[in-house]
């Protein structure tokens, strides 16, 4: 026997990895071939690059700076609803961008709550469009993520250290120097890099709150080159720049970040003996209350204005909702067909290349893949007719890195624990897959499928490239309603989208854990 026996083949996983790599690199090559040499980078392209970098730096710095205060407050306070608040910090991940934007507009927009309050005192209303609007939305999405990453750092300081510090009568300053500052030095660069990388490829936020020559990201510029000018050469050039940028950022982020923010045990409260002064207490209460308000008010706004909007929904919104459910289902299916074999192959330790292929989705830009697919499909078929399958496919590839992070550790555990027993019972192959692997993986499969379904349901990306007026997913339909200033109907549709996204996540996640044996 030359090789160790394995209960399941790694070949399908290698095939899936190859497919993903071919999709990402193939579309890139297709785009690159269309990029015309010698055209160079125009002034508006430079502006897009500059804006992309500036907003990403600002968003990352602000998100992480605020997250440090919030994480510190959460780490040393125990209060009613603490675990609920921490769980809610995970929610923006599956919150559709367009829903959050509507919420932010309702709170911070020209006619929003804050502007109205300012108006009472005779101040000018807020102006949300432009750089600060984009940064505001990015902070809304990434403050929770950064908080979870940094809170994880705090939780990983052993309880004994705090006990020792208390025993030595160390004050807040000493605890900061001894314990907290070194931990932050370790954790903060990773959090900064992750948020920076996420904000680089921001599309939907820039599409709705940015725009114009002074607030266009590269992703948005790709869309405009493609959609308004149908200038494939320019779209390709911008795509190449975007890919280098996101690739570098993702590489750096993976290098410097250890934690992933999805770890369990974040709601565990450490026993602390410091921070008992009334100043520290007041400060922490301020952090927690203002963060909770900042994160929850926009959602409350969507819900409250959406309820009445629900009755204004026309048939085309319901059609869009059905379309979105179908795209989401297809995307989830594709994701599982890719992710499960890949997770199994990685668990068998077959090849590091498979893991790399899984991470590619982090560096790839959906709009670049979309543009590339358009170029590839165009000579053979009408790309607009394939808008929905293409959207589902791209969504699946984008969800792949997250799905693998969820599936791989469990797949390792299952093959390590039950591999030999299954082999000795002659269960290699299908019996292992059906009787052992899938049943043992069910909670993780449900969680990954829930994430993928919710992400796809709320995605406003590739679909904007391909859609013709006849076809729309629900997020695109909401965007169109906003463009037509039908804000009431948009809010109603947003509430529907919110319910659908959270609903599919809940159903799939619950379904996975339903009657699952430990």
């Amino acid at each position, binding site marked *: *026997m*030359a*090789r*160790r*026996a394995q209960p399941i083949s790694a070949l399908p996983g290698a095939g899936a990895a190859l497919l993903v790599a071919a999709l990402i690199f193939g579309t890139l090559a297709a785009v690159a071939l269309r990029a015309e040499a010698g055209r160079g980078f125009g002034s508006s392209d430079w502006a897009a690059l500059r804006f992309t970098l500036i907003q990403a730096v600002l968003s990352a710095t602000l998100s992480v700076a605020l997250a440090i205060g919030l994480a510190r407050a959460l780490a040393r306070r125990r209060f009613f609803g603490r675990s609920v608040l921490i769980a809610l910090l995970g929610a923006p991940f599956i919150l559709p961008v367009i829903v959050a934007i509507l919420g932010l507009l309702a709170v911070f927009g020209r006619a929003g709550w804050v502007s109205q309050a300012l108006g009472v005192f005779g101040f000018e209303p807020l102006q949300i469009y432009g750089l600060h609007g984009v940064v505001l939305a990015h902070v809304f999405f990434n403050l929770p993520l950064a908080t979870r990453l940094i809170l994880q750092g705090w939780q990983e300081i052993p309880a004994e250290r705090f006990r020792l510090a208390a025993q030595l009568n160390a004050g807040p300053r000493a605890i900061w120097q001894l314990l907290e500052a070194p931990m932050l030095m370790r954790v903060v660069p990773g959090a900064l890099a992750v948020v920076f990388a996420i904000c680089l490829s921001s599309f939907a936020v820039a599409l709705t709150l940015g725009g114009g020559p002074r607030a266009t990201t590269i992703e948005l510029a790709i869309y405009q080159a493609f959609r308004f000018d149908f200038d494939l050469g320019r779209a390709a050039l911008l795509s190449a720049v975007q890919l280098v940028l996101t690739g570098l950022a993702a590489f750096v982020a993976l290098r410097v970040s250890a934690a992933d923010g999805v770890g369990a045990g974040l709601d565990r409260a450490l026993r602390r003996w410091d921070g008992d002064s009334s100043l520290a207490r007041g400060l922490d209460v301020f952090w927690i209350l203002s963060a909770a308000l900042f994160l929850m008010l926009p959602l409350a706004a969507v819900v409250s204005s959406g309820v009445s909007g629900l009755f204004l929904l026309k048939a085309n919104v319901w059609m869009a909702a059905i379309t979105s459910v179908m795209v989401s289902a297809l995307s989830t299916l594709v994701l599982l067909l890719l992710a499960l074999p890949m997770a199994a192959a990685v668990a068998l330790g077959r090849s590091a290349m498979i893991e790399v292929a899984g991470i590619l989705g982090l560096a790839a830009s959906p709009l670049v893949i979309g543009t590339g697919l358009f170029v590839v499909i165009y000579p053979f078929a009408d790309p607009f007719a394939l808008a929905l399958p293409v959207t589902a496919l791209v969504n699946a590839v984008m969800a792949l890195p997250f799905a693998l992070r969820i599936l791989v550790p469990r797949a390792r555990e299952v093959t390590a*624990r*039950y591999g*030999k*027993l299954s*082999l*000795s*019972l*002659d*269960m*290699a192959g*299908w*019996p292992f897959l*059906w*009787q*052992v692997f899938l*049943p*043992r993986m069910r909670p993780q499969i449900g969680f990954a499928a829930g994430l993928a379904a919710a992400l796809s349901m709320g995605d406003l990306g590739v679909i904007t490239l391909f859609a013709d007026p006849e076809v729309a997913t629900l997020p695109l339909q909401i965007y169109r309603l906003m463009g037509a200033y039908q804000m009431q109907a948009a809010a109603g549709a947003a509430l529907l989208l919110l319910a659908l996204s959270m609903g599919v996540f809940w159903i799939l996640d619950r379904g996975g854990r339903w009657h*699952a*044996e*430990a």
Partner: protein
Amino acid sequence: MLRLETCHIQNGAFTVQADLQIKPGSKVAIIGPSGAGKSTLIEAIAGFLPLTQGRILWRDRDLSAMAPGKRPVAMLFQDGNLFPHLTVAQNAGLGLRANLHLSPQEQAQVQHALERVGLGDLAELTPAALSGGQQSRVALARVLLQRRDLLLLDEPFAALGPALKAEMLDLVAEIAAETHATVLMVSHDPQDARRIADQAILVADGKAHAPLATAEVLDNPPPALKAYLG
């Protein structure tokens, strides 16, 4: 005859050598210091570790290139012998069919095996609802259904108390007698070896020695074993 011909078994950095024969129907204890390679030897026979040299034959048939599940071997591991999401009946039924598509006749066979080990009325429970001893009995019911020529035990009862362990070893002896199986049993407890094994293989210093009568080995232990037994 189970023949290990000039076998070199690689397990990570270290190698175990074995060149020995075991008579069909015998019950053999594998003893020796921990880390000497007792489990390595048994896992090579089961097909989990490759041979870098030599071959393993059972009744003149070369097993060396066969997949673990295709060998005439039933094995019980130190732990994790049951699938927690399958019922007692399903866990035992895996001994008949890996895909669990059992005919009514096979289902009756499973029920019969469960009754044989004293678990007739627990068939629909999952392992979590059973005691440690009952879990061992489910695994033994499966061994009964597998009807393989060789039964390999890698200390599956180590977590049980002394009385329960003795009970299980007696059940193993009965099952081996009923299925005419040859038993190889890893053990670090000389009492276990004396209880059911008529022969013992000493594994020490990277070498598995030819089997000798258990009482003889334990009463006049060679230096390596003496150091271990104290």
